[in-house]
């Protein structure tokens, strides 16, 4: 605490708002977990990293052209190689030059087996190697022929100077105070992540000086601080509050294209959930219409409703969505009852019993979902309660989700986990349902394993033609809606809200801040 700060108190009272105006502040659902691109896990991470780092190539959201801030042109080098020619005068946030060496370092880091990132594993497949030909010329070689070679180069470039070796680990300083080449420099603090315009390089000229990412609070507080002009944006506005914002004159709602669907993962290791009939019965015992009306505020048959029920692991507009599988909209008590009886459960009093003891379900929900769908956890709990299942409900915070749920260690703790997955245009769901082994099924929550499903997923991987891929996932959809490792709930659109002072703010699908250079802040 310096004297300067002490002094600032006196007049800051007056100028506080002016000071705030220079700084564009927005709410995201959480603080980013890791700012190291290789260890991005949540959407928050992706969005924040898009500001700190440059992806070598990215799709311009307007004309979809594969663009790069770093390479000025590329040419094919043989059938499996690409030669990149970088722009001059590129600088990292720390003032060092960005050269071909950094590009190759990043690729080597991705290839280094000691780099324990799941994301790196995915990229690893495609790269053979990288050689620095000149200071600003890099030759990248792939393992196979790609029709869109540069489309594989959508990874964030890392600075060689910041690492001792190519084996990059999580939880280093870098993951909270990254050095990137992106439009904004900054770090993750305890209450917020801060961003400062990075203008010292030729390839970025953001018009906004400062931004800060704050952790979303109670939706009411968010909405009101936004309307009062103390905050400038909310990344994801909960559906119940959208009408209010839509009618406000200072704020505009903007569509954020993100393909996300909600689910309840079932623990098929736990008795009696290991019986298929029981899972199917649960599927019939959830009244989805009621849920989405009470917790999201969407009535059945609303036009342009942000929430649509699903029967499989895809959003309804997806090419993979198998329309022949009907959605279960409401409760079907009779069906459920017969299924449960067939599975050998019997109802004593108001509770269902299996092998003589009452069934107890431990239900967990990702905490941040509660902002989007208030009380959803209790709603589902009560529906199961009425249906005759005793239950315990728990909120799952970001850390636990990252550490126990996604990594498949929740089996001992939970029997049902409510969550949501978000996708880019690539709606590949293999990691969710493949048997977890050898780098496969990295996000298989309850380590679901079913040879038939694995076979179908393999079929998808092997598919050479698009029609074959489509058929494979149609099959998958059908299979999963019968096997039910998940109870599929709905897809839910994401909408952002920004104050009108924030202008020409094009929201890039999925990555969000890609075109931040064009964003402006002006009262006019």
């Amino acid at each position, binding site marked *: 605490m310096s004297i300067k700060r002490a002094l600032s108190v006196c007049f800051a009272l007056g100028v506080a708002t002016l000071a705030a105006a220079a700084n564009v502040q927005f709410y995201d659902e959480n603080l980013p977990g890791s700012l190291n691109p290789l260890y991005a896990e949540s959407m928050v991470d992706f969005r924040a990293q898009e500001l700190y780092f440059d992806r070598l190539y990215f799709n311009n959201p307007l004309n*979809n052209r594969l663009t790069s801030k770093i390479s000025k042109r590329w040419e094919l080098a043989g059938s499996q190689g690409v030669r990149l020619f970088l722009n001059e005068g590129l600088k990292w946030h720390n003032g060092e030059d960005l050269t071909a060496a950094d590009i190759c370092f990043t690729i080597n880091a991705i290839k280094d087996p000691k780099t324990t990132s799941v994301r790196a594993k995915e990229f690893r497949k495609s790269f053979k190697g990288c050689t620095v030909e000149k200071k600003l010329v890099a030759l990248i070689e792939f393992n196979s022929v790609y029709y869109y*070679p540069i489309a594989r180069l959508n990874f964030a470039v890392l600075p060689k100077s910041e690492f001792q070796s190519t084996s990059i680990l999580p939880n280093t300083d870098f993951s909270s105070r990254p050095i990137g080449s992106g439009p904004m420099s900054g770090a993750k603090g305890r209450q917020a992540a801060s961003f400062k315009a990075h203008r010292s390089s030729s390839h970025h000229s953001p018009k906004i000086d400062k931004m800060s990412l704050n952790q979303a609070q109670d939706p009411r507080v968010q909405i009101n601080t936004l309307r009062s002009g103390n905050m400038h944006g909310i990344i994801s506005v909960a559906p119940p509050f959208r009408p209010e914002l839509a009618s406000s004159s200072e704020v505009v709602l903007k569509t954020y294209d993100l393909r996300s669907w909600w689910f309840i993962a079932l623990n098929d290791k736990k008795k009696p959930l290991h019986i298929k009939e029981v899972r199917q019965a649960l599927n019939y015992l959830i009244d989805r219409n009621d849920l989405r009306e009470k917790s999201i505020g969407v009535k059945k048959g609303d036009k342009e409703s942000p929430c649509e029920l699903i029967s499989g692991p895809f959003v309804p507009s997806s090419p993979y969505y198998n329309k022949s599988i009907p959605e279960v909209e409401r409760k079907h008590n009779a069906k459920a009852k017969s299924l449960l009886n067939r599975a050998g459960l019997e109802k004593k009093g108001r509770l269902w019993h299996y092998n003589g003891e009452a069934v107890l379900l431990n239900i967990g929900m990702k905490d941040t979902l509660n902002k989007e769908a208030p009380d959803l956890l209790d709603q589902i709990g009560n529906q199961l309660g009425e249906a005759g299942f005793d239950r315990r409900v728990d909120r799952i915070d970001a850390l636990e989700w990252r550490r126990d749920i996604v990594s498949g260690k929740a089996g001992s703790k939970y029997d049902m986990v409510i969550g949501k997955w978000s996708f880019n245009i690539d709606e590949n769901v293999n*990691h969710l349902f493949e048997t977890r082994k050898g780098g496969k099924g990295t996000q298989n929550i309850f380590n679901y394993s079913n040879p038939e499903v694995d076979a179908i997923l393999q079929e998808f991987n092997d598919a050479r033609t*698009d029609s074959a*891929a489509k058929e494979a996932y149609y099959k998958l959809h059908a299979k999963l809606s019968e096997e039910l490792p998940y109870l599929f709930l709905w897809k839910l659109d994401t909408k952002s809200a920004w104050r009108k002072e924030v202008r020409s703010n094009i929201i890039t699908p999925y990555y969000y801040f890609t075109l931040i250079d064009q964003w402006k802040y002006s009262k006019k």
Partner: protein
Amino acid sequence: MNTRLSTYIFWGMMGFGTSCFSSDNSTSEQASIETPSTQGISKDYWIYRLVQAEKRQPFIQDIGWQNYYTRDFANVIALSKEESLARFHLEHAALYRQALLMHSYATQKTVLYKSLGSQNKETEAKIDPKTVPLDSPQHAYLIAIASIFLEDYPAAKTYFDRVPTGPEFDSHVAQWRKWLDSDKKSPPTLSGFFFSAEGSSINKSPSWNEDQYAFSMSDGSTYEATDGTSLWLLSRWHQDQAAKILAEKSNSAALIDQWLAPWRLPFETSFVSPTETKVLELTDDWFLFGFYLQAEDMAFMHAVSTDPKSAISSWKSKSTFAEYIDLCTKEDQLNAECIKDNAEKLRQIAEERNKELLKGIPIEQIDTNLLYVEFPSFVRFSLLRAAALYAFKTKQIDAAGYLMLEVREASGVVRDPVSLIFLTAYDAYNANTVRAPELLHEYADEFSALQSARIPLDFLQIQLTKDGSHIPTY
């Protein structure tokens, strides 16, 4: 006792807090945007005319319009009559043309994906129809059809040569060849193509044939495909219905041409000879909840689609759209941001004006949502749409895209399907499958043909992502 005390303290604190610390949060007042100098333009917008309840009444009574308002487009055709029915038919015609445009672009991109991809994007793609590799010979037919609609006749011919002979194609190929070999001064006369108008009437759209081609691929999978021609025929059918209704009107030809002009397909330029652009005498059936504020704007958009270069200079003193687009154009570059601001400004003016017009009427007798919210926002979105189309016609792709993204945010009755399907066409043109599927899905129930129209787009998305490296995120 204690509660009261603590609440006192509480309030004390609050007072303290607010009085000492709260710094006035001056909400950003929109500084006035420079308004155009030319004042000669008539501002006789439909939103002002229809503020009077008695003028609005016939429409409110009309069940067709009610359905249009609640956006049950499927019923609209069935329940409307006379001129409004003609308009709705024309809207359907326009919509299916956009769907077809999307279909053609998507087919082109997905069939030629592998060949386009390896090319350097900075330079224009060079494809040789003779040699370009195709997943299956049947693809040649699909791409041929697409090429026709995109007015690449030579390519179409070459592709037709590669189509294997077989029952499902022969008659279709023959019909198209016939037209290709003709002078193309008249629209193709086609039959079949999974389209039959039988059982349809002026109030009943023809039933759409969901399943079309299904040819088996080398790896045993079946490739379902749809024929763009069916969409063309459907669109034509709607156009003909409109023509039938308007038959006895003197200016029907001009009207239909003006209405469809912005939405025409590239290949129509071969046989459509545009009528000369003039301001038409029209009833409110043609404006209510529509694209244009007044007849001048309609004429201007017609001019834009026939001759974008001179359109502005000749119309900026008559049409509001032209006026504002001119205002926001500096050396032939449209400033999308400026359009956006002016559109908002225009909306505010309209809202004020409507309140002005209804002064003195007790508020509970006013449908405030309709007159103060929806009507004014039509002004905003009309301008945005017009500017977007203008930008597209003048090859300012990014500006067009930016404005279309604004248009997409429209909701309620303002959210018109035609321009949204136009957006999907725009995206397909850019081989972009992020937004389009969602939009197509949104209207698939209302316009069943869209369900099949999107098939090539689906394949395009699979192509783009098949060997992707993406992991689901939470």
